[in-house]
C-alpha cells in the first residue's frame, strides 16, 4: 500500500461525516459528524506532511485540533442554552429562514 490509501480513507471518512450532517436531526450528533470531518482532514494533513518531509502539516493539524476544541466548547454551550429555552435539540426546529 502507499500513502494514497490513507488519503482515500480520509476522503471516505469525510464523506461519511458530511452525509451524517445531512441525515441526523439531533444537534449534538450533527456536531459530532462535523468533528469527524475535521479529523479526516487532520489525517490528510499528517499524511502529506509525511509525504513532503516537512513538519508544517503536523503543525497545521495541531492548530486544527486546538480550534476544534474551542469550537466544541462554544458550540455545545450554545446547544445547551437552546435546549434550555426550547426543550428540544432538533435542528429542524430552526426553520424560519425561508420565503
Amino acid at each position, binding site marked *: 500500500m502507499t500513502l494514497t490509501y490513507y488519503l482515500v480513507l480520509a476522503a471516505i471518512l469525510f464523506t461519511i461525516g*458530511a452525509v451524517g*450532517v445531512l*441525515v441526523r436531526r439531533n444537534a449534538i450528533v450533527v456536531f459530532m459528524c462535523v468533528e469527524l470531518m475535521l479529523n479526516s482532514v487532520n489525517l490528510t494533513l499528517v499524511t502529506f506532511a509525511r509525504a513532503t518531509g516537512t513538519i508544517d502539516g503536523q503543525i497545521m493539524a495541531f492548530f486544527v485540533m486546538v480550534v476544534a476544541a474551542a469550537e466544541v466548547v462554544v458550540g455545545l454551550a450554545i446547544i445547551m442554552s437552546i435546549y434550555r429555552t426550547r426543550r428540544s435539540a432538533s*435542528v429542524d426546529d430552526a*426553520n424560519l*429562514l*425561508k*420565503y
Partner: protein
Amino acid sequence: MDVLPAEGLLAASWLLIALPLAGAAVLLLGGRRTDRWGHLLGTATVVAAFVLALLCTFQLAGLDEPSVGVDLFTFISAGDLDVEMGLLYDPLSAVFVLLITGVGSLIHIYSIGYMAHDPARRRFFAYLNLFVAAMLLLVLGNSFVALYVGWEGVGLASYLLIAFWYTRPAAATAAKKAFIMNRVGDVGLALAIFLMFAQLGTTSFEGVFGTVGTLAGGTITAMGLLLLLGACGKSGQFPLQAWLPDAMEGPTPVSALIHAATMVTAGVYLIARSAPIYDLTETARTVVMAIGALTLLIGAIAGCAYDDIKKVLAYSTVSQIGYMFLAVGLGPAGYVAGLAHLLAHGFFKAGLFLGAGSVMHAMNDQVDMRRYGGLWKKLPVTFVTFGLGYLALIGFPFLAGYFTKDAIIEATFDRDDWLGWTFGGIAVLAAGLTAFYMTRLMLMTFFGRARWEDGVHPHESPAVMTVPMVVLAVGSVFSGALLVSIFPLSDWMEPVFGEPEEAAHVIAPATIGIALTAIMLLGVLAAWLFVGRREVPVTAPVRVSPITRAARHGLYADAVNESLFMRPGQWLTRALVWVDNRGVDGAVNGLAATLGGSSSRLGRAQTGFVRTYALGMLGGAVLVAGALLAVTAG
C-alpha cells in the same frame, strides 16, 4: 408702398392694444375686489382706445404716404427665423380698428345693462377686453406671425365667452366645438406661415408681399388655399360653418360683437390683407369665390327654417360673410366692395343682435320666436332700431345694405364669364331668401297675435341698452351711402389696393339695383303670404317638406361632421385605449405577474430547514469537484 416709421400720436398706437389688455389683466387678476367697478373699467378702456384710434386715423389721413409702422420688440430670434413684433397702421387696418373699437364700445355700454343681474359681470368684461386687445393685434400686426398671435387670441376669447355660463352643458359643448373647428382652420394658416418662412425666409407683410412674386405658381396657389382654410375656420364658411350657430349659446353681446361684427370678419381681413398673394393666383381666387357663393346659399336656406331668433341671425351672418368672401375673391375689383359690405354689416348685424338681446331681456330670456308676437307696441325703441337694421340687411333702397350688396353683385357680374353669371345669380337668389327669412323673423317677433308664455311682461330696455342700439341703427341707415358714394371707401383704400379700375359694366348699375329691389320685395311678399297672413303655430309643425326639414337641421352639416370625423375619431381613441390597456398594460403587468409568480415558485426552494441548505452545499461541492476533475483531466 413704403412703410414709414411712426411719429407723434401714431407712435403710441401700441396703446390701442395695451389699454384693453391691461383692463383684462386688472379685472382677471384683481378678482372679486373689482366687481363693483369692473364693468366701468372695461368700458372705459375700449372707449379710450376708440378715441385714440380716431385721433391716429386723423393723423394718418394727413400723411402723404399713409402707411406707418411701429416696431415693438423682437418676438422670436432663432437661427434663420427672425420675427419682429410690430404694428402696421395703414388705411386697411385703420378701418378695422375703428370698427372694432367703435362697435366694441357700444356693445360694452350695452353689456353694462344686459349683464346687470349677472354676478359674473366683471369676468365678462375682462374677457371682452381680452377679445378687443387680441382682435386689435390681429388687424394691427405687421407680420403674419403677429396676425396669428391675435388670431389665436380671439379664438381663445371666443371660447371663453361662448362658455361664459360654463355650468350649462350646451354652452360648454358649443365652446369646445367652436374652438376645435377654429383650430382646424388655424392649421391652414399655420401651414401657410411655415410655407412662407420656408420659401421666402420671412413672415412680415413687407417681406412676403415683396418677394412672393418669385415663387412658383403652384406654391402661391397652395399658400392662397391654406390661407383660405384659416379664413374659413375663423369666419364660419363652408365646410367649417357649423360652429357659428351653436356659438349663440353665449350671451347676446358676445354674439353681437364677436360673431357678427368683428371676429368672423377676421377671415375677410386676412384675405384682403393677403391681396398681393391672391392677385397672383387665379385658382385660389376662384376657390374663394366658390366657397363664398356656396356658403351664402347654405346660410340663406338654413336661416329660413329656425325658430330660435339668434340662430336665424347667426345663419344670416354666415350668409353675409359669404357675400364678403365672394367679393374679395373677385380680385382687385372686389376688395373694396367686400370691405364696404363688411363695415356696413358690422353696424346692422350688431344692431340686430343687440335688438334681439333686448327682446330676449324683455321676454325672460326666451329665444323661441313662436313665443313672441305683437311686441311692436311693448318695445317701441327696440322695434324701430331692429326694423332699421332689418331694412338695411335686406337691401331696402338707399339704406346701407342696398349700396354694399349692390356693389358686390355688380362686380361679380362684371366678370362676364360663366363663373360671374353663376355666382352672381346665386347671390341674387340668396338676396331674395334673405328678405324672406328676415321678414319672417320680423313678422313672428313683432307682429301678429301675442303668443307669450304665462308670467311674461315685456318691457322696454333701460337707456344704457337702447342708446347703443340707436347709434347702431343710425349707422345702419347711413353707412352704406357714406362708404360707397359720399366718402368712397375705394379712395381711402387706394394706398392699399391701388387705383379702383372703372370696369366696363356689363349690366348697368341701375338695372341691378332695380332687379335686387324686385327680388327683395318678392321675398317679403312670400314671407307675408306664408307666415304673416296665417296664424303662427306655437309649436313647430312636424309634417314639413324635405327641404324645410333639412334646413331645420342646418342642412345636415352637423350630421356630416359627426359621421366623417367624430365617429372615426371616437373609434380610433377607443381602439388606442384598448391597445394601451391590453397591449401595453398587459405586457407590463404580464411581465410583473410572470416575475412574481416565478419568484414565489422559486421561493419554495427555501424550506427553512438547515439540512436542506446543507444538502445544497454538498451538491455544490460535488459539482465543483466534478468540474475541477473535468478541467484537469480534459
